[in-house]
């Protein structure tokens, strides 16, 4: 098990390093400059480039950045929050985004599991239809539209939730973004849970367990659900990607001061250091999640660990 984890961790670190290189390369090739004021003269521009070290060749900048990064220095912002260290800029928005994202994911997964189990047990009933409708809507309605609808109906029409984020009432402000973000995980999880559980419930070993007289509750929890979980963990990765991209638009609609909003502004204004840092954080979150999922596989199903170690 230890060898297995170590291998996954090493691969993750290498992946992250490759991502930074690619990010650097792409930003280098991106047109435009952080200093777009029409009124700037060429001499002033040159001065600014020197000041922020943008006049150096690509690899010099890259290695300088990597060395600084290892020491926890992500450079300074040159547009968004002029001359402020990016590491300081990230702290608050990252905290907000992670909290909203985790809440959304948790809510979506739990609701999705519940809905999926109910639909599987009451196969072909109204709750099954509801489950299908929810998963179709959740997959096909873009997060932006759903967030706006939520802001309009739940926020404006009925006044249940605040439309805009307020630092004075953070908990309440999280409700809207959380529900909007939960939509996609809920749809995916419920759909998979339903079909997997129906499969498992029809299998031979479940019939055997039933024949042994195990109670329905125990049968679902201990025997059926555990085997349903593996395929569901498989889809957690794609769900997470949805969540990350969704967070950008959901944060925008509800005015949440998260990292998604920051990244979009940084890209638009060519604030290189902030863009790299945000994209890196997104990639790191994704890779760490994948790592956790990989390790979870091994714990839930020992056969996978053995097979992977063998290869």
């Amino acid at each position, binding site marked *: 098990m230890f060898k297995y984890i170590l291998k996954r961790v090493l691969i993750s670190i290498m992946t992250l390093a490759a991502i930074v290189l690619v*990010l650097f390369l792409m930003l280098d090739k991106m*047109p435009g400059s952080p200093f777009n004021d029409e009124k700037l003269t060429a001499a*002033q521009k040159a001065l600014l480039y020197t000041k922020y070290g943008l006049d150096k060749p690509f690899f010099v900048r890259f290695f300088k950045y990597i060395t600084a990064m290892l020491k926890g220095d992500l450079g300074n912002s040159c547009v*968004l929050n002029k001359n402020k260290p990016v590491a300081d800029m990230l702290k608050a928005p990252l905290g907000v985004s992670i909290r909203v994202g985790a809440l959304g994911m948790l809510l979506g997964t739990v609701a999705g599991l519940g809905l999926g189990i109910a639909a599987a047990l009451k196969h072909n009933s109204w709750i099954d239809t509801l489950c299908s409708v929810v998963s179709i809507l959740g997959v096909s309605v873009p997060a932006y539209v759903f967030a706006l609808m939520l802001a309009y109906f739940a926020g404006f029409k009925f006044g249940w939730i605040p439309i805009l984020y307020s630092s004075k009432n953070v908990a309440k402000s999280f409700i809207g973004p959380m529900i909007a973000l939960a939509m996609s995980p809920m749809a995916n999880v419920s759909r998979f849970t339903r079909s997997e559980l129906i499969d498992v419930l029809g299998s031979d070993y479940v019939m055997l367990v039933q024949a042994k007289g195990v109670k329905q509750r125990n049968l679902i929890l201990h025997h059926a659900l555990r085997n349903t979980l593996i395929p569901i963990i498989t889809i957690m990765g794609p769900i997470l990607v949805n969540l990350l991209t969704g967070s950008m638009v959901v944060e925008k609609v509800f005015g949440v001061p998260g990292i998604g909003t920051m990244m979009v502004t940084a890209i638009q204004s060519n604030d290189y250091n902030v863009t790299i840092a945000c994209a890196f954080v997104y990639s790191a979150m994704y890779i760490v999640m994948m790592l956790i*999922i990989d390790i979870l596989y091994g714990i839930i199903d020992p056969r996978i660990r053995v097979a992977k170690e063998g290869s």
Partner: protein
Amino acid sequence: MNFKKALTAGLAIAMLAGCSGGSANTDDSSSAPETAAPETSSAEQLSAQYSNLNFRLALSYAIDRDQIANLVLKDGSVGLEGFIPREFAYGPDGKDYRDTAGNLLSYDPDKAVECLNKAKDELGVDNFTVSILYETDSEAPGKVSAAIQEMWTNTLGINVNLVSKTKKERLALMNALTYEIGLTRWGPDYADPQTYLDLFKSDTTAYNGYYFNDEYDALLNKAETGEDATDPEKRWADMIEAEKMFIDDMVAIPVFQNGGAYLINPNVTGIEFHNAAVDSYRSIVTKEEDKNVTIAITSDLNTMDHHVATDGTSFIMQSLIIGGLVALDAEGQPVPDLASSWDINDDGTEYTFHIREDANWSNGTPVTADDFVYAWRRLDSTDLASEYAFMLDTICVKNAQAVFKGEAAPEELGIEAIDSKTLKVTLTQPVGYFLALMSFPSFFPLNQEFFEAHEATYAQSIDDILYCGPYVFSEWVENSEYTFTKNPTYWNAANYDKYADEVTFKFISEAQSAALSYKQGELDVVTLTGDLVDQYKSDPGFTQRLQGYAWRLNVNQQVKE
């Protein structure tokens, strides 16, 4: 998870980061290539085409500017009547520049066709293809370009391609001269036509540098630094003549002047919009009980350091907490702020400001002439490399250029402290808009002692700022909310009772949700964009105004491959 899979996934995220700037905004991926035009037209042919005066005139006559403003944009914008917009510069007689200069542009399809036929003869070409480059960062440029495409196709029968780019890509293409016709805009730095006319002088380094006209240069030089510089009437007449010359040459094709639309709580008054200066939120009056005003802003605060700031949002907040030698009244005229009075020498090149005895910083130290000297030297320093250092050059402060380039010592900059409360500024020539610009944040004072003690983190938190304006920064929630409360140490604090106790700016980039929140009573001021303008037209708080931004089509007479 194997390495390949992880890498692909990571790359997907990286692509997202790298591409969303371009791909999200470039809506017509099927449009013509950048240098546009069919295979046959080379750069020389294109340059010849756009260098033809009759061709440029035909393009201008074929644009129905009123239709663009009233039927396409519908957001309070108006068609331009010349290169200089309305409601931003006023002459020695107090009249709007535009009223004196008159309407120089017209929509005339017959004349357009006539000019086009002349151009065809002169160039020996049967048909033309043109390409319009526009930015997709906001909705208006795309709508306007599509309307112009239709007008040119219908009236002139020429082929028109549209090329959409993000703003920064558009600027890069225009800087490199690798475009044909580009829809661009200019926001004035100060309330004088010069801010527009100077763009097309031969020595400008901006992307308009291809226009060379000695007569035009001579006329502007005469008005700005030459014999007419000290005679406001003659100077004004020169400007009007220069603009006429510009339009006769149809150097660039003016299109429309921006309108701004807002929802403002009818109980809230006193927000002063200035077309050629920073909007003022310093004297807001509210009839609401809590005396708090919340304003939605569509772009975030970039910095509270007034020497490195370049954006409107930052300037607005800096104006609340610091302040200049003068402030602007509702009409945009300078009134005393930190300086109680000033003397001007006879030829208008030396200003002596008397700083108020009771003007103090929030830590109790007096605001002195040295604070201004220190501040201006910092703005002009090579080390800081401020993007707004050029403002010192704009107001013709002695040695501003030389000091910025490091060719002269900072002490040689034309600003000195006669004594602790007397400040002298020396200019190279009289500048009519000098006093009004003293309300601009780049020229605000900075206390050396405080700055040096906080240098590493200066202006990055509410404790790293020293205040001398009507408000202090009381709560700074990054990327979200910025709250200002009254400054008891402001020199005019005694007269500030009638104004709002608390002013909060809330960053919300989604105009839809901001408007909903306004309807709910959570926000007092919201900026409307695009279709929202139409949607909220009947709201009691709906307010419209003309902005100083003038949009024009730059015509590239030196197309590069």
